[in-house]
C-alpha cells in the first residue's frame, strides 16, 4: 500500500509547491483582477490568490497520491473489487436478495408519505432520469453508438402530449403510447441517414439533430408556440378524479415507479436476448459482427428506435409533471446530462444507470446549500470520475450461465460431435 506520508517529504512538498505557484499565476487574471467597467476601477482580490495557492497545494498532493495509487493497481489484478465481493456475498446468502428487495420496496412505496411534496417531486425527476438513462444506455452502453441528441426524443414526447392535449384535448394515458411511438419513429428517421457514420461523426450529427429540433421548436411559433412554450398542461388523470397538488405529485411519483419497473423489466430481457447480444457484438466489433451474420443496419436502427421509445415516454410524463414546457428544457446540456447518467453509473449496467441517475439528480439538489458552486463541483466530479474510475460506479457484469459438466458431456455425445 502506498503511504500518503511519502508526500510530506521535502522533495514531494516542493513539487506540490511548484504546482501551486503555477496555478496561482495561471488563475491570476481571472481570480484576482476584477474590473468595474462602469466606474472604471480595478478591484484586486489578493485573498483569492492566497486561497488558490493553499487549495492547489492540497489538491496537488492528493491528486498525485491518488493517481499513483490508481496506477499501482494492475489492470489484470485478481484482487476482488468491492462490487464483486458484494455480488458474491449476495449469491452465497440467498436470503439477502429477497430481504433487500422488500426493504427497497417498502422505502420506495412509502417515500412520498414521509418525505413531503418537494422531496417527492425531486425523486420523481430522478426516476425520470433512470428511465432516460436506461433508454440511452441501449444506444450508448449496449450499441456503442455515441448519441448526443437524445433530448430531442424527450422533447418529441413532451410536445406530443402538450400539443395533442391543447388541440384535441387528448388525455395523458392516450398520449403516453403516442408520444413513445412518435419518438420511436423519429429514432428510426434519425438512424437511417447516420448509418454510415462512425464514432465522433455520429456524435456530432446526433448533436446537430438535437439542436435542430430545439431551434425549430423555438422558432416555429405557429406550431410550438416558440420560446414561451405551452402552459397549463393537465396532470395525469385517474378515472376523472380531481386531485390536489399533493395527491397529483404522489400519483406521478407512482406512475414513474411503475415505469421504472417496466423499463428495467424490458431492458433486462432485451439485454440477454438474441437482439440484445447483437447490439453488444456491434459495439465490440462491427466487422466481426457482420461476419457472424448480423445485419448491422438493422441492429443500428433497432437501437436508435428502442432508445428513443423511452425518451418519448418520459417526455410525456415530464410535460404532465411540470404542466409547462418550452424548448429550454431540451438543450444539449440535457442530452449531456443523460449521457453522464449512463457513463457515471456504469455503461451497459442497469444498476449502474439507476445509481448514476440518483447521484447526478439528487446530488445537485442536496448541494443547493452551495447552489452557486454546484455546477462547478459537478464538472469537476465528471473529470475526477473519469480519471479515477472510468468504468463508472457499477461495472457491467455479463450474464453467467451454469452448466453441469456431466449433462453437457452426455448431450455432446448424443449429437455425435464429440
Amino acid at each position, binding site marked *: 500500500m502506498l503511504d500518503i506520508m511519502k508526500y510530506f517529504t521535502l522533495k514531494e512538498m516542493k513539487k506540490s509547491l511548484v504546482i501551486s505557484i503555477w496555478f496561482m499565476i495561471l488563475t491570476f487574471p481571472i481570480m484576482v483582477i476584477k474590473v468595474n467597467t462602469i466606474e472604471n476601477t480595478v478591484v484586486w482580490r489578493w485573498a483569492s490568490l492566497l486561497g488558490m495557492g493553499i487549495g492547489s497545494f492540497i489538491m496537488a498532493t492528493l491528486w498525485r497520491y491518488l493517481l499513483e495509487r490508481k496506477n499501482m493497481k494492475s489492470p489484470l489484478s485478481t484482487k476482488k473489487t468491492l462490487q464483486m465481493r458484494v455480488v458474491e456475498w449476495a449469491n452465497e446468502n440467498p436470503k439477502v436478495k429477497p430481504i433487500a428487495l422488500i426493504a427497497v420496496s417498502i422505502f420506495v412505496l412509502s417515500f412520498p408519505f414521509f418525505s413531503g411534496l418537494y422531496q417527492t417531486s425531486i425523486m420523481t425527476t430522478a426516476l425520470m432520469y433512470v428511465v432516460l438513462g436506461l433508454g440511452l444506455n441501449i444506444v450508448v452502453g449496449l450499441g456503442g453508438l455515441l448519441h448526443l441528441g437524445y433530448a430531442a426524443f424527450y422533447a418529441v414526447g413532451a410536445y406530443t402530449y402538450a400539443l395533442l392535449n391543447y388541440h384535441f384535448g387528448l388525455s395523458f394515458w392516450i398520449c403516453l403510447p403516442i408520444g413513445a411511438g412518435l419518438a420511436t419513429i423519429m429514432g428510426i428517421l434519425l438512424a437511417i441517414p447516420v448509418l454510415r457514420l462512425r464514432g465522433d461523426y455520429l456524435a456530432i450529427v446526433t448533436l446537430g439533430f438535437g439542436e435542430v429540433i430545439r431551434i425549430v421548436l423555438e422558432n416555429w411559433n405557429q406550431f410550438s408556440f416558440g420560446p414561451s412554450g405551452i402552459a397549463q398542461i393537465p396532470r395525469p388523470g385517474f378515472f376523472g378524479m380531481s386531485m390536489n397538488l399533493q395527491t397529483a405529485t404522489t400519483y406521478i411519483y407512482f406512475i414513474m415507479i411503475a415505469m421504472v419497473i417496466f423499463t428495467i423489466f*424490458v431492458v433486462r*430481457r*432485451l439485454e440477454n*436476448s*438474441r*437482439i*440484445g*447480444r*447483437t447490439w*453488444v*457484438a456491434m459495439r*465490440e*466489433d462491427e*466487422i*466481426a*459482427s*457482420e*461476419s*457472424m*451474420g*448480423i*445485419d*448491422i443496419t438493422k441492429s443500428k436502427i*433497432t437501437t436508435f428506435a*428502442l432508445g428513443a421509445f423511452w425518451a418519448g415516454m418520459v417526455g410525456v410524463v415530464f410535460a404532465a409533471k411540470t404542466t409547462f414546457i418550452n424548448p429550454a428544457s431540451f438543450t444539449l446540456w440535457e442530452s449531456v446530462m443523460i449521457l453522464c447518467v449512463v457513463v457515471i453509473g456504469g455503461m451497459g449496467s442497469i444498476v449502474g444507470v439507476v445509481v448514476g441517475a440518483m447521484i447526478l439528480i439528487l446530488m445537485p439538489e442536496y448541494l443547493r446549500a452551495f447552489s452557486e458552486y454546484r455546477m462547478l463541483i459537478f464538472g469537476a466530479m465528471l473529470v475526477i470520475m473519469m480519471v479515477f474510475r472510468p468504468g463508472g460506479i457499477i461495472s*457491467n457484469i*455479463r*450474464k*453467467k*450461465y451454469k*452448466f453441469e*459438466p456431466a449433462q*453437457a*458431456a452426455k*448431450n*455432446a455425445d448424443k*449429437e*455425435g*460431435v*464429440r
Partner: protein
Amino acid sequence: MAPILETKNLTMQFGGLTAVDNINFNVNSGEIVALIGPNGAGKTTFFNCVTGVYTPSSGDVLISTDGKAQQRINGLKPNKVTEKGLARTFQNIRLFQNMTVLENVMIGRHTKLKSGLFGAIFHPKSTLEEEEKVIQDSYDILVEVGLEKFVNELAKNLPYGAQRRLEIARAMATEPALLLLDEPAAGMNPHETKELDEMILKIRNTNDISILLIEHDMSLVMSISEKIFVVDYGKLIAKGTPDEIKNNPEVIKAYLGDVSDA
C-alpha cells in the same frame, strides 16, 4: 459436382494498386485448401473479396453449398455471405472482447435463430426453448474445441492460443459449408500449432465441411492441406498438392526463396 467455392478472374484494385489480379481458384467439397504467399501478396484481400468485406473490382465469386447450383455472391454484404454458408476468422483476432466466451459462440448462432423483439420481451415458449437450445449448442461447440473450462470468462481474458480457437468456434457456430481461416496459427508456439492442426482435421472430419486457410506456418500447411494455391503480387503463380508445391521452382523463387536468402 460444382466446387463449393470458385472464383473466376477475380480482381481487386485499390486506386492504382492491383491487390488481387485475375485469380481463378476453387475449393471442392470436403477439401482442406491452403492459400500461401509472401506478406502483402494479397491473400487477406482475396479473403475479404470472397467474404463480402470488399466488393471485387471485377470477376466472379461463385459458391455452391448443399449441392445447389452455383450462385454469384459478389457485392453481397458480409452477413449475407455468412448466411449462405461461408464463415471466417480474422488475422488479427477480432473477438467480442467484453462478452463471455459462451456469448461469443452464441453470436455465431445468430442466423440460425429466429426470435425477435416480441420474443425477447414476452418470452413465449418458443423463445425460451430456442434460448435454452442455443446455450447448449454453443456449449457443445466449446467442448469440441476444448474451451469449455472458459465458458463464462470474458473473451479478452483468454490466453492467446485459446482466443484463436474461440474464433474458430465462433465461426463454426454459423454452421458453415466452408470455413475460411486467416492465419490461424499466427503467434502460436509449435506445440499449440500441432494441437491446432489436429483440431482443424477433426473439425473437417466430424462436420463434413471444407476449409480454406491462409497460413505462414509451412509445417501446418504441408501437413494438413490437400491442395495449395500460391499467390505473389496478387497473381496466382502455382497450384497443386503439397509435394508439387514444395518442388515448384516458381514458388521457391517467390516465396521459399525469400526465406533461404534471409
